[in-house]
């Protein structure tokens, strides 16, 4: 319900009208307005039941009638008298004479084309009569527009209303007989040839409906005249007055001030009981009598007298059609305006309440129709950056564990987690038992991270696994990457989340060498080209070579020379000999006397030397979706990933690319803990609402609608070739994003140091060369510069580089 209220607030704004361009602070007009206002108020007070109206009311009436003093007067009179009557009604409820308005002049004929052309020869219409006839129904469509049934649901709205009307009619007051018949010159000009092409503005009709609570004949005339004349008056929109509230101040002559002061007193009088006695013909009736009846039709009195029963049944009110039509925008605007202006007459209030109810019904109906329930989450409107600065968290670091397949990455990390107490002993024992059952006892530690059934069965990590542990100074997040060459795409996804890398090397005989040819190099190159600066080399399985110092040094020497050529700085490379299975030199020093030669840092100490990493907090939000899953019953749709830049909080509206769909952040989990916000660098789970999961795939990018990431089908990149590059098919990787594409053009090969082109349009780019290439993709993909991308072909990495 609160949502509907919010909707109304949108209209509850005075400058709605101020924007319509008719606002003219022309002094002449204002002067004229002042005069008119004075005249009207005089008229009002002079006539029989002397009534008073506030300046504002008068001005509004004037505005509606384009400064026609008489009409405004009659309108206001009608309104005020009704209010007066209401008071009387409250006092004397038993004064029940149904009165029918007898118009003192024939009102405007309902337009009928047949009538109009009556005297014209067929197909030979005189040219002066040729006009565009727009037959707009004089009355709003009735009947079936009632909308959703009321709460009861049983009685149709129409029937309910008819009943209500009948009741009202019963307690209706007699009309004041002595309505002053005023000169009404405008009557003569009323029957214009195109009376019904009138753009009968809703506002006018509404004004009429507000005014026409009085059964006074003169009033009826007024309203009818208005209906008829609106087409004419529309011709002079320039005369429109500035909205009353803006000129209010300068217009308040002393007595007007008094009126204004009086106003609050008589305004809150009960009006909702206002009986309506004039009834416009029903749909049915107008169908029968409407067009054929011609000029007589619009004579409500005739109709009334002839078919009272019918009309009583349908209880249609001529001047108040919008009770039926339900809430129209103008309706709401007017109500809102009245409210804003302090015109809080009960009438308006009750009406708007009714409107709201109708709206609620309507919206409720819509809600029933829509399959998915929209969820709204209130944003706490936090200043996330400030919160982040206040939060005073531990230094956090993500690191990816890479290396050749079977180097012992998962086992090493399992050991690390176990020793750090992130995994309890019971779970570990369980894993051990299960692993032994299938004859793979040595895999027990790896099972901490290899949770997939297939991974356990085959003893190979397939997808990345994240886990976390804390030391005194730092909160670490482990990203355990698969080593198998087929799963390098997954490893790229893991590496894109990392601040630094741990390269695990199998020290056992033969394995190191095969690893070097295999993924050891590829992984190291990949993490380097993805922006990782620091690398810790864990020389694993030292126990299988009896902690041979020579072996360690050999490996150290080979790897460090390779890493330096790959672009790692010497100071950012560290070597630790260790044993994952036994746990030597991981969190504790090796107790093996053979390994006592090593006095350097253990692996955990080495990890802790990592400095605090800074992230682009103030950049626009970017997050690559790592996974889309069903979190729980409460959170049927969750995405996980790492915030690349920016920040977000609960209640934020996010945009997912390339689908371009918006979603609402229902809740945020940072490292598994619920939080109100998240900033760049954190691993988060976002529970989303108001989006279909079909629009979310891993590799999509979350951003904000205010600064969306562009979807591109072609891009230029400066890449380092690992293998020969030529125009060819490639797979493009960026984090989880993995799309097929092709190198369509080799723009130039570049000088490695300066970046200056050395050769334009080379036919082929040799490994180790930097080149600028154009890559095309079949589908649009969210990519923007500067982003690090990896190009792969046929299962091996052919190039990596930076989007330009």
């Amino acid at each position: 319900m609160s949502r509907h209220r919010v909707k109304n607030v949108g209209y509850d704004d005075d400058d709605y009208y101020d924007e319509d361009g008719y606002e003219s602070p022309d002094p002449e007009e204002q002067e004229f307005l002042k005069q008119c206002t004075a005249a009207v108020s005089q008229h009002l007070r002079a006539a029989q039941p002397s009534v008073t109206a506030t300046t504002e009311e008068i001005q509004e009436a004037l505005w509606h009638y384009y400064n026609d003093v008489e009409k405004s007067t009659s309108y206001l009179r009608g309104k005020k008298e009704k209010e007066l009557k209401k008071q009387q009604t409250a006092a004397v409820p038993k004064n029940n004479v149904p009165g029918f308005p007898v118009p003192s002049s024939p009102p405007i004929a309902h337009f009928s084309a047949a009538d109009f052309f009556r005297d014209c020869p067929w197909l030979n219409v005189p040219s002066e009569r040729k006009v565009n006839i727009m037959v707009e129904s004089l009355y709003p469509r009735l009947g079936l527009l009632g909308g959703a049934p009321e709460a009861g649901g049983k009685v149709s709205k129409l029937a309910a209303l008819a009943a209500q009307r009948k009741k009202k009619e019963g307690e209706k007051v007699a009309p004041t007989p002595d309505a002053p018949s005023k000169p009404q010159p405008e009557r003569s000009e009323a029957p214009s040839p195109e009376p019904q092409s009138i753009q009968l503005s809703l506002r006018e009709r509404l004004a009429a409906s507000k005014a026409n609570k009085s059964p006074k004949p003169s009033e009826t005339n007024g309203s009818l005249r208005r209906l008829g004349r609106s087409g004419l008056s529309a011709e002079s929109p320039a005369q429109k007055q500035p909205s009353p509230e803006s000129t209010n101040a300068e217009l308040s002559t002393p007595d007007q001030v008094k009126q204004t002061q009086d106003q609050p007193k008589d305004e809150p009088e009960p009006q909702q009981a206002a009986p309506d006695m004039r009834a416009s013909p029903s749909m049915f009736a107008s169908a029968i009598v409407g067009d054929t009846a011609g000029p007589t039709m619009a004579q409500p009195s005739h109709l009334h007298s002839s078919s009272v029963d019918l009309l009583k049944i349908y209880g249609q009110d001529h001047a108040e059609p919008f009770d039926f039509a339900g809430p129209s925008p103008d309706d709401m605007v007017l109500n809102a305006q009245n409210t804003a202006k302090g015109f809080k007459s009960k009438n308006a209030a009750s009406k708007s309440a009714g409107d709201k109810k109708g709206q609620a019904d309507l919206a409720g109906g819509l809600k029933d129709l829509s399959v998915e329930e929209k969820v709204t989450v209130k944003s706490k409107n936090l200043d996330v950056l400030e919160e982040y600065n206040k939060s005073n968290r531990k230094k956090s670091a993500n690191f990816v564990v890479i290396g050749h397949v079977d180097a012992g990455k998962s086992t090493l990390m399992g050991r690390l987690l176990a020793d750090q107490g992130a995994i309890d002993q019971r779970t570990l024992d369980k894993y051990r038992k299960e692993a032994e059952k299938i004859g793979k006892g040595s895999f027990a530690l790896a099972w901490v991270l290899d949770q997939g059934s297939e991974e356990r069965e085959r003893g190979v990590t397939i997808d990345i696994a994240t886990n976390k542990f804390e030391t005194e100074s730092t909160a670490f997040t482990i990203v355990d990457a698969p080593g198998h060459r087929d799963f390098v795409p997954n490893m790229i996804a893991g590496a894109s989340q990392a601040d630094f890398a741990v390269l695990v090397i199998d020290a056992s005989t033969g394995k190191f060498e095969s690893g070097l040819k295999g993924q050891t190099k590829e992984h190291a190159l990949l993490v380097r080209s993805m922006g990782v600066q620091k690398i810790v080399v864990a020389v694993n399985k030292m126990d299988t070579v009896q902690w041979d110092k020579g072996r360690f040094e050999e490996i150290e020497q080979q790897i460090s020379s390779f890493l330096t050529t790959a672009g790692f700085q010497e100071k950012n490379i560290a070597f630790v000999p260790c044993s994952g299975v036994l746990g030597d030199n991981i969190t504790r020093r090796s107790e093996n006397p053979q390994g006592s030669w090593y006095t350097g840092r253990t692996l955990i100490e080495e990890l802790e030397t990592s400095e605090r990493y800074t992230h682009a907090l103030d950049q626009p939000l970017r997050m690559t979706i790592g996974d889309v899953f069903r979190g729980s019953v409460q959170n049927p749709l969750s995405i996980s990933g790492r915030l690349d830049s920016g920040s977000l909080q609960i209640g934020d509206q996010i945009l997912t690319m390339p689908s371009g769909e918006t979603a609402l952040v229902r809740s945020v989990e940072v490292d598994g803990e619920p939080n109100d916000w998240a900033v760049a660098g954190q691993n988060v789970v976002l529970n989303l609402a108001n989006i279909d999961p079909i629009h979310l795939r891993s590799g999509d990018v979350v951003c904000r609608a205010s600064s969306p990431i562009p979807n591109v089908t072609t891009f230029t990149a400066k890449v380092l070739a690992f293998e020969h590059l030529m125009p060819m098919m490639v797979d493009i990787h960026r984090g989880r994003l993995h799309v097929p594409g092709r190198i369509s053009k080799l723009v130039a090969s570049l000088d490695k140091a300066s970046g200056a082109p050395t050769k334009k349009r080379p036919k082929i780019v040799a490994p180790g060369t930097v080149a600028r290439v154009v890559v095309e993709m079949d589908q649009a993909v969210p990519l923007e510069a500067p982003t690090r991308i990896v190009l792969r072909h046929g299962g091996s990495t052919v190039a990596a580089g930076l989007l330009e």
Partner: protein
Amino acid sequence: MRLIKNKIEHGGSGTVTLCPEEPEDMWHAYNLIRPGDIVRASAIRRVTSTQDTGSTSSIRVHLTLEIRVKSLDFDPQSSQLHVSGQIINETAHTKIGQFHTLDLELNRNFTLEKKIGADGEGVGWDSIAVEQLKDAVDEGGKRRAEAVAVVMQEGLAHICFIGQFQTIMKQKVEMSVPRKRQGGSDHDKGMNKFFRTTLDTLLRQIEFNTSITSGSNNESVRPVLLASPGFVAAGFHKYIQSEASTTTPGLKRLLPSIVVVHSASGYLNSLAEVLQSPAVKTLLADTKYARETRLMDDFLDQLRRETNKATYGPREVESAVDQGAVGRGGGVLIMSNRLFRSQDVAERKRWVALVDRVRDVEGGDVRILSSDHESGKRLEGLGGIAALLTFPVVEEELDSDDE
């Protein structure tokens, strides 16, 4: 395609009557028929007649229409060829010059006429066209059965039909499979669902009847290649096995024809790797296709070794031909047949002239690769034309072009 009648004259003009028998024949027809040719085929045309009173009635009439081809529209997925152009024969129902689109149908003859017109108007039966005709008409009937490949990775599968001349991607299955998570079994569930969908799609595409009774008539089942990185294909194979032994025993007939191979990814890029696997090689050995793939591999190998004995791109190849590098003793001109499908007659003439020159004057070898095949696609990336050279050609610096 059956050749019903062949009346190609010495000069290059002439007509042939062909009968397409397989869907792939439509692809041949697509390559054979050029704008400007005259095609005669049976057609169904809706004829609207107006009576004197002004009322109209329309009837469908069966006609044999002859049209001068304006454009061709080929739908590779359903192997349908629509040839549209202006009618040039008078019938009771049509006037000359009216437009009609012929839908060529299987097992219905059509006649194709190519004329050498006054300059530029039609090129007649040039050497390429004759060659294509030979390709299209499967004389020895030794066309090998095609294979079905399912290239997959987690949550993604492409089902393709590999034929002699084209590889058609029939359907793509894409599904979001949750990744492995701490203590979640979503991944396995998701994979199972993915396998189920893929299997259903595959069976629908190969029109495999799973009912157990249909197995008796011994219909031949095409080889099915399951390719993926990692264990997805193996997992899928296992899934099919378990389905065959539990719910749908009819699948047992499919099992012997399944081959699991490795591919680098689940995208069509990696189809090349699939087709090079030993299992496929024995299957498709000595088909045109296998030769094409080998040729492309040779070419790329030369390019990689930077011996300057391989070049690609229209201008580069033409200049190499000018220097006589594509001649006897190993010179091979490799072209994509897309170049001959060009709407522009002059363009086609240019390539035909180049081919004729290499073959007849220079004495080199010419291979036309199917652009709808994997090797052809690789060639497309290089501009559709490449050449293996007999001697290294130093490429001149093309500084002027800033393209």
